[in-house]
């Protein structure tokens, strides 16, 4: 079943061995239609955005280390009372950002954190980087269905990011990433930076739609001979479900954001009651996109976890079809639950309906977690970095999912809504889910993408520090929320200080963990050991080609002869008995 004869075709270079000369190399990357190069460019751009959003998050945590107080002291020399303000830690940025007060600096920081992390980092994160790189290879194809469209969506992404960064350089916006009206249509009325940020999100949406369309068509049309729907790796099922949501939901946010721009610039009353609009209508429009998009963020992460758990425990995934269908089920139900973001702004009947529908979405999610745990049963589990990240995901994502239950329950949501409890919950899902899985995925596919191994010990250390830092940062926030701390507060009552300080220390640990990863990645690129074609013994098609893959992915069109998780019966391509043993099974091919 070999599709690759490495020795015979060694002359065909890896995808990044371009022409000589710096300029022509740069041009080759900028004009490439190769999904792998586009994926790598996305990866670095997305990680840069993660860094930018992370800096804002650290600033937010830094401000929250103490409440703002006015301290009156007696000046011994003049006998006068001197009034000073303490606790405005971001006050120094006031002039640089052109803000009126330290509070406004804080408000811009959390908006910047949210907008960058949601629109520029987490929505494109896994699909645009790992998805772009691996979807065609895992299908056994040369490229995505529309390679030029793929390049276009990369440039649209870059344009969106430029708009966003311009808005930030002009001082940033204080609308919150949700742009709730009428605040967002009236704040900083004279400034274009709010419109710029809204347009950034608008433009980024098109990148999302085009990538989604490309992937849907690729999955339908480009599967290798022999690959039926149920022979696809679960990562592809997840990306497929994600793409459907992107194509269907993103136009709604596009229209909504455009209406917001019309209202701001031309004063057409759509959402602002002062002009005859309805502010809650905006929330319905916004969440009609932004709830499904939560699953755009988490479904690809779930796909990665299915791959990592199966490969690193050398086990057939438990309940393949249940996992595949639960991805589609989540995608379908995700369109019916947007109302649970606005229980406190809607009528009773609507609230009850949306509460019931929200519980529905919990079921396919729970099924996935059960299947993942069952996959470990009787496996041959190795605790390397990707696997540790997968296990960390099971831990944090389970907390994220379970803490969602009191938010779907109407009675308890009325207390917890818009508090730090919600902040903690969605960070457990988005960061504890998507980012942790993304880190696991990057470590898993790093040798394939760049042809270099990384220092395993350093990566494991980074993983452990990220895990501890993450839990320290966000577990404390559950208690802040239940005890009464509202979100988006620059200042708070004294009782909450201890928990805020712990949370901030956690954010510093997170920074340390990510810096360690950055170090191992750079060390790997500069001086990493050459990676073998199949370092983990995977059976999906990307492990049949070389590391890094050649320009056209495969020397010959691959033909699928086994399922993606048939570890019990199949010899992995490029198998090295030193790495792992194989079962004594005579039925093996």
């Amino acid at each position, binding site marked *: 079943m070999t599709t690759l004869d490495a020795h015979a075709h060694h002359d065909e270079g890896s995808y990044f061995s371009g022409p000589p000369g710096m300029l022509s190399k740069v041009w080759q990357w900028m004009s490439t239609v190769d999904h792998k190069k586009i994926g790598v460019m996305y990866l670095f751009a997305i990680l840069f955005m993660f860094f930018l959003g992370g800096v804002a998050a650290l600033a937010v945590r830094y401000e929250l280390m103490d409440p703002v107080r006015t301290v009156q002291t007696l000046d011994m020399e003049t006998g006068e009372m001197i009034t000073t303000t303490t606790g405005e830690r971001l006050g120094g940025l006031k002039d640089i950002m052109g803000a009126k007060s330290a509070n406004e600096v804080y408000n811009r920081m959390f908006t910047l954190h949210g907008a960058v992390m949601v629109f520029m980092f987490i929505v494109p994160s896994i699909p645009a980087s790992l998805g772009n790189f691996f979807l065609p290879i895992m299908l056994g194809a040369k490229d995505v269905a529309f390679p030029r469209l793929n390049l276009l969506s990369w440039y649209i992404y870059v344009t969106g990011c430029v708009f966003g960064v311009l808005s930030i350089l002009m001082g940033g916006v204080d609308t919150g990433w949700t742009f709730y009206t*009428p605040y967002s249509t009236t704040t900083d009325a004279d400034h274009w930076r709010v419109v710029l940020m809204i347009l950034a999100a608008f433009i980024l949406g098109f990148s999302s739609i085009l990538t989604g369309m490309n992937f849907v068509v690729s999955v339908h049309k480009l599967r290798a001979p022999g690959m039926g729907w149920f022979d696809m790796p679960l990562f592809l099922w997840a990306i497929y479900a994600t793409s459907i949501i992107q194509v269907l939901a993103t136009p709604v946010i596009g229209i909504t954001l455009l209406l917001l721009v019309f209202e701001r610039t031309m004063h057409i009353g759509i959402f602002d009651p002062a002009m005859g609009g309805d502010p809650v209508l905006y929330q319905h429009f916004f969440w009609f996109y932004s709830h499904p998009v939560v699953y755009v963020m988490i479904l690809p992460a779930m796909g990665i976890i299915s791959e990592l758990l199966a490969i690193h425990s050398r086990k057939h995934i438990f309940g393949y079809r249940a996992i595949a269908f639960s991805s589609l089920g989540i995608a379908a139900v995700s369109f019916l639950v947007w109302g649970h973001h606005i229980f406190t702004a809607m009528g009773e009947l609507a609230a009850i309906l949306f509460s019931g529908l929200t519980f529905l979405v919990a079921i396919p999610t729970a099924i996935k977690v059960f299947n993942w745990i069952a996959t470990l049963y009787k496996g041959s589990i190795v605790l390397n970095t990707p696997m540790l990240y997968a*296990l960390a995901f099971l831990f944090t994502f389970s907390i994220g999912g379970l803490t969602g239950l009191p938010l*779907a329950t109407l009675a308890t949501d*009325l207390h917890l809504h818009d508090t730090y409890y919600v902040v903690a919950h969605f960070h457990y899902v988005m960061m504890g889910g998507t980012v942790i899985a993304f880190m696991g995925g990057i470590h898993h596919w790093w040798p394939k993408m760049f042809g270099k191994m990384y220092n395993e010990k350093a990566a494991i250390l980074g993983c452990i520090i990220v895990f501890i830092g993450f839990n320290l940062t966000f577990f404390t926030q559950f208690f802040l929320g239940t005890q009464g701390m509202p979100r988006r507060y620059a200042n708070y009552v004294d009782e909450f200080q201890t928990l805020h300080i712990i949370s901030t220390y956690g954010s510093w640990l997170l920074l340390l963990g990510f810096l360690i990863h950055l170090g191992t990645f750079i060390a790997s690129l500069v001086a990493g050991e050459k990676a073998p074609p199949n370092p983990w013994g995977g059976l999906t098609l990307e492990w049949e080609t070389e590391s890094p893959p050649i320009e056209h992915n495969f020397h010959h069109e691959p033909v699928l002869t086994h399922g993606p998780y048939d570890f019990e019966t199949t010899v992995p391509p490029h198998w090295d008995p030193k790495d792992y043993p194989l079962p004594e099974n005579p039925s093996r091919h």
Partner: protein
Amino acid sequence: MNIPTLASTNASFLQRIIFGDNAASEAAAWSDGLFMMIFWFSAFFFVLLMGLMVYFCIKYRRKPGVAAEPSPHHNLHIEILWTVVPSASLLVMFVLGFKGYAMKTVSPTDAMELKVDAWKWAWKVTYPNGASSPETKFLSYQETDIGISSGLEYPIFYVPEDTEVKLRMHSQDVIHSFWIPEFRTKMDVIPNRYTGYGFKTPALRDSDTVIQVDDQGISSEIPGRDMWIFCAEYCGDEHSRMAATLRIVPREIYDEKIKFWGTPKDPKVLGQQLWKTMCAICHSIDGSPGTGPTWAPMNGYGFGNMAQMDDGTEMMRDDNYIRQSILDPNAHIVSGYAPAMPSFQGQLSDTDIEGLLAFIKSLAESDSDEQEDNQQADDSAGSDG
């Protein structure tokens, strides 16, 4: 400063850590109980799943030369089991959540109705007799070794104990959210419609006392219980300072207070009280910068001085200018400020506006001695709580 507590519920140790032991109504205690039920359900599954995960990772760790044993790829019975059990449990949560929602939002028809008004960035509660509370207290207050440390002042809203209360809420500008953590309920306050919810105030116990400060700055202990009100929907620069205190007092004290607030008083005093509860978040009277221009008669600000407008014109800060600034604030904007102020048309009566005018004028007239008196009155109000 302590958050007042009520030991009316038999909260478990864990429940006290999670919520604090301060549920102030039956509905609130019930909702905490529901949370704890969901918590134990979640904890059971979380420990079970993580226990299995850790156990499998140890038992089935990779050993050199030993391969993974073949095991089933799926199992219909177990898959049905783990679909049906969560589904049934979730149905229970949904139904109980619905019940608790009704407890928190529906109030008896004869409940006492309070009108809540919100704007950037203050709350106002109007009582059935049309009066509203002029009293304030500090958000946080400490005496440290380097001096007195305090937060900003916030209004105190009085409600009688052991009474059904319902709120009718409306916003003057953007969306806010009225949250009383101890009643475990919040609802958005929206500019183009009324929203609201109800709660039953708890009966006071002997140990529930608060410090109140009267007009002369004399403090005394009265029976009562304070709880926070926070704005929970992001509304701009001073969102985190949009707080208030709900003070539950015996019926007699409540009746006496709203009767007193309902009777006419010296316009200057009325104006000062209105400033403290409604205007102070943006307009200072000591010259310090804020979202709006200071009212202090210094550096060209204050009554009787010319204002530099953003369209290049100059306007005299006289009676009419101030009246227009209150009722139609965005007609003219002082240079360097944003059009951030909502209109108080319908919010403030003519008497209120007269009061504010009198107070603003008094700032310009007052000499430094009077200023200092004001300062002292403010300081002693801070010893409250």
